[in-house]
């Protein structure tokens, strides 16, 4: 638009200058005609010494919270770059990438950092790519294109939530955890008592004590140190699943694993991606690491896993099943409200 306006201005100035025989206007017309190629060359010259990249190759953020991605503009030239437009695309797997135009610049021989904020609605891996760079001249008339291709990934993790998982005494640990590692017994020992906190399971409320004191007290159970929970994941069809579906799956997996970790020393996640794979999580950090592994795995490589008899299986549809029977079908609402204890 600016180019067209300038050309129109030059044409009008030339015409009026000639018509009125007003030499200064003719000078301006010619000056603008000369200014255009000058600015074109300038934009090309500025482009040669400029590079834009992400500060780190990987970033992580929690769903719903903000995180920053630093974009660095490095100008190795002697002339300042005041306007550089970067086309940045971001995409979840299986989703259409969206793009933003991002303006950045840097003084001569300097580096400038500008930050992008991530506030992603879904869990998963977002791939950010600087697809195109356009380095403008000082008057923003011409923009010299420059290939960039800088890439970074942002892993979006679920919020730190956990399902209140209860190991049903009647069932014991059978079908849930590995028998050899189990200490056996249906009851866990009370390690201590403490005041109720928001989010504590109602099942852990020490009813007698609470009744006596008039305040809510909860039992802190002794963790079963050698108790390892197993969970089989059926992620077949991940290559076609929408980000929203995958996000819910990851959230359920994360919350379930976190819930299980309260009762077990570790959680083992089995899935098939070309071959049988196993991820073990002993802490929340491990859960995130496991999720990151899942994020990174090529969605097309997932195949249907078969859980041994009595083992729990979590599918992409968020259905937790055992021996083909649904134990629980998770939905997004399970995260919004206290949904009671999950008896496994």
């Amino acid at each position: 638009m600016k180019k067209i306006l300038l050309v129109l201005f030059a044409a009008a100035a030339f015409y009026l200058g000639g018509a009125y025989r007003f030499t200064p206007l003719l000078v301006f017309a010619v000056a603008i005609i000369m200014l255009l190629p000058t600015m074109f060359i300038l934009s090309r010259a500025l482009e040669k010494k400029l590079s834009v990249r992400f500060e780190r190759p990987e970033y992580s953020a929690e769903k719903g919270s903000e995180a920053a991605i630093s974009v660095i503009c490095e100008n190795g030239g002697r002339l300042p770059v005041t306007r550089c437009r970067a086309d940045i695309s971001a995409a979840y797997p299986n989703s259409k990438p969206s793009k933003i135009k991002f303006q950045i610049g840097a003084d001569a021989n300097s580096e400038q950092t500008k930050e992008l904020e991530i506030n992603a609605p879904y869990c998963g891996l977002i791939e950010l790519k600087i697809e195109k760079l356009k380095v403008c001249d000082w008057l923003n008339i011409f923009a010299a294109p420059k290939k960039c291709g800088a890439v970074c990934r942002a892993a979006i993790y679920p919020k730190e939530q956990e399902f209140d998982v209860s190991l049903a005494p009647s069932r014991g640990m059978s079908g849930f955890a590995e028998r050899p590692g189990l200490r056996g017994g249906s009851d866990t020992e009370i390690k201590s008592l403490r005041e109720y906190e928001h989010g504590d399971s109602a099942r852990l409320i020490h009813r007698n004590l609470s009744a006596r004191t008039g305040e809510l007290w909860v039992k802190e159970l002794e963790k079963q140190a050698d108790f390892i929970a197993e969970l089989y994941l059926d992620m077949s069809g991940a290559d076609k699943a929408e980000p929203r579906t995958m996000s819910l799956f990851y959230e359920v997996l994360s919350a379930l694993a976190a819930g299980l970790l309260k009762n077990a020393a570790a959680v083992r996640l089995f899935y098939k991606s070309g071959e049988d794979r196993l991820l073990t999580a002993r802490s929340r950090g491990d859960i995130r690491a496991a999720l990151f592994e899942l994020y990174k795995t090529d969605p097309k490589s997932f195949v249907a896993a078969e859980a041994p008899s009595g083992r729990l299986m979590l599918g992409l549809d968020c259905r937790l099943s055992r021996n083909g029977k649904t134990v629980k079908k998770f939905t997004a609402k399970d995260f919004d409200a206290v949904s009671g204890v999950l008896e496994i």
Partner: protein
Amino acid sequence: MIFIKHNKHENKTEKIITSRSERNARNNPLFSFLVLLCGIFGLLLYFASIPGVYFEKALAFAAAAVWCAAFAFLFYRNRKYFYIASACAAALVLLTAVFGRGLLAAQLDYLSDALTGAPAAEPPSVTLLVLTALPVITAMLPPLAAAAGNIAPIAAALLIIAAPMLGAEKSAPALLLIAISAVGSLALGAKGNYGGREKASALSCALLLVIIAVSAAFVFPSADRLSELTNAAEGKIFRFIAEKTGRTADPVQGGKVSRFNNYLTDREQLTVQITRYPKEPIYLKGFVGGDYNKGEWDAADDTSILNDIQNKYQNNWGILGITNTYSSLFFSMNLNTIDDTIPYPASMSVRYISSEGKNYYVPYYSRVDTIYVYGGYRFQYYEKGDMRINWNNVPRMYEPKRDQCLNLRAAYSAEAKEIYTRVPENRLPRLRALCEGKDFESLAEITDFIKNTLDERTEYTQTPGWSTPGGDPVEEFLFDRGRGYCVHYASAAALMYRMFGVPARYVTGYMIEPSDFERQKYGTYNAALKDKNAHAWVEIFLQDYGWTPVDMTPLEGGEIEGEIYPGYSEPEKTEQNGGINLNINLIPKNRDESETDIQENTENPATAEPEEQIRDYSMFERTEKPIRTAAKIILPLALLIAVALLATRKIRRKRRAGCRAEFARLLDALSAADIMSEYDGTEPDFCEKLSEALPEADPSALRRAVSTVMTAAYGKNPPSDDDSAFAIKTCRGAVSMIRKSMPIYKKLVFTFKNIL
């Protein structure tokens, strides 16, 4: 689907990936001040270069520097104080306007004269006006430059282009400063908080200066060639359009003194048939000018003069009446003069081809023979060389008619001296100065002076370039451009004759050279008149000829040729005037005197000083002009301010309404696109339906946005800033999607509805 967008100003948005909000780096006040100062100084110089605009430059420049420094510093350092200072400046301006309204009105009046092309010879100062306007302009510039970086360059471009139209011939330094300021502010206008903008701005200005220097080195030696290039292009376009449309303007354009180039076509306009091959060029009058004003001649009104004469003398003018008697007076006298050397009058018929009969073309010394024959009319006429009127040698039976004609001539001559010597001298100060103080004793001396003036000062060309719209084309022709064609020569000569008290009229019509005629089968001679035959000349009133053409237009590149008028001879030779008794008053007339009696005029030459004349004329229009000028300036300004206020109010309301306003716009968009027009947004399935209607939109985002809007509208507590911003952006995104799906006319209706 991920929404990622770049948001520059909001801290938090709904966007999944946004640029982290940052303030644009504040410009260095000193550099910004310099850029603004360039602009303000440029504006002042520009203003000063408009003819007729005069103010105390030192004072104005000093005031501009002070205001500019104050406003630039405050704007870039402390906005709050900037607004306070702006309010103070506005109050100051208001006080000045209230207490100095009389002076300001008068200065506005002078300014209006200057801008509309009627500058006074000695322009009065408009310093107070300039000083009053300065704080307003300087206060407006920094926010304008910061808010919309492109406004300053566009305004600068418009000013630069308008310079020749305003006659700002000496505005080159002003234009340079304005251009530097525009380029500087454009380079400074880059968003973001990174450095280097001042450096880029300074380098841009330097680059511009270098480029202008190189351009000037190229353009100045070849300015004429470049101008000719534009003229050639303009001419080609003109002819191309004429050829393609088959429409050409009547080359005889009435009394308007052209401000443009003259491009000729080969289109035939008239056919003239005569019975005798002419010995001299034949002039066909089409338009005759009376009073001259602002580059235009009013049509001469001989009928009212003749009616006045009829009323005064109560003569019996016979069946022809006074008008017809007068129109053929000199022809009839020549016809009835007993002189064997006078040939029988020739006959001429004029027929229209494409000039659509707008003008009625009459040869000199003629009598209408037949009207409307074969789509034209016929005259009997004499050539100038055949006019040998002898008032004393007519047949006895014609003597009463002769006496009547003599009376009519005397009466008309007296009236002509009164009416056709009027000149708006105050609007032609330079021409007045040129003619002032010349002591000529004869018509020949006057003619010689005019001829020499035109020879020395001007050059004939069909492409003299355009004149400034407000300026006087005759003064520009004589004193500025020095180039013109027949209309300019004729107008200048007519005005100069009038300045010396010689009755003269501007005439446009056709001039036919003898060589234009071709002999026909039956002994007649035909000439097809084209644009090139269209011409303008002066006619002066000679006692034995009546109105006689005086052609002051030289040949291209040559001098004025020809006999000029019968009896003209070089001034050093014996003054004979061809037996003409001019009885002219050679002292310049003034406008007021023209109202008085001719005799009184002769006895009491103009005594009023030129300054007084100007003042008198100014007084004549002063009561109306300030109002008109104020209306011209204040009304658009007020309109602009009103629009700006309304826009600001709308934006503020929108901001206050927050996401609800955007949601309402979304509903409007849906309604405009005939999508879900039955929904009002409160329905439970609104989001689902909207998601179906807009498959590109993220349903969860829409749900969140709608929920936020509902909270904003009906909730106990307002939604969080995050949610509100999210809702606004989502609604905007949805509106944009809906707009894309609309047909153009609906899009336009929706857009304009929103604007209104």
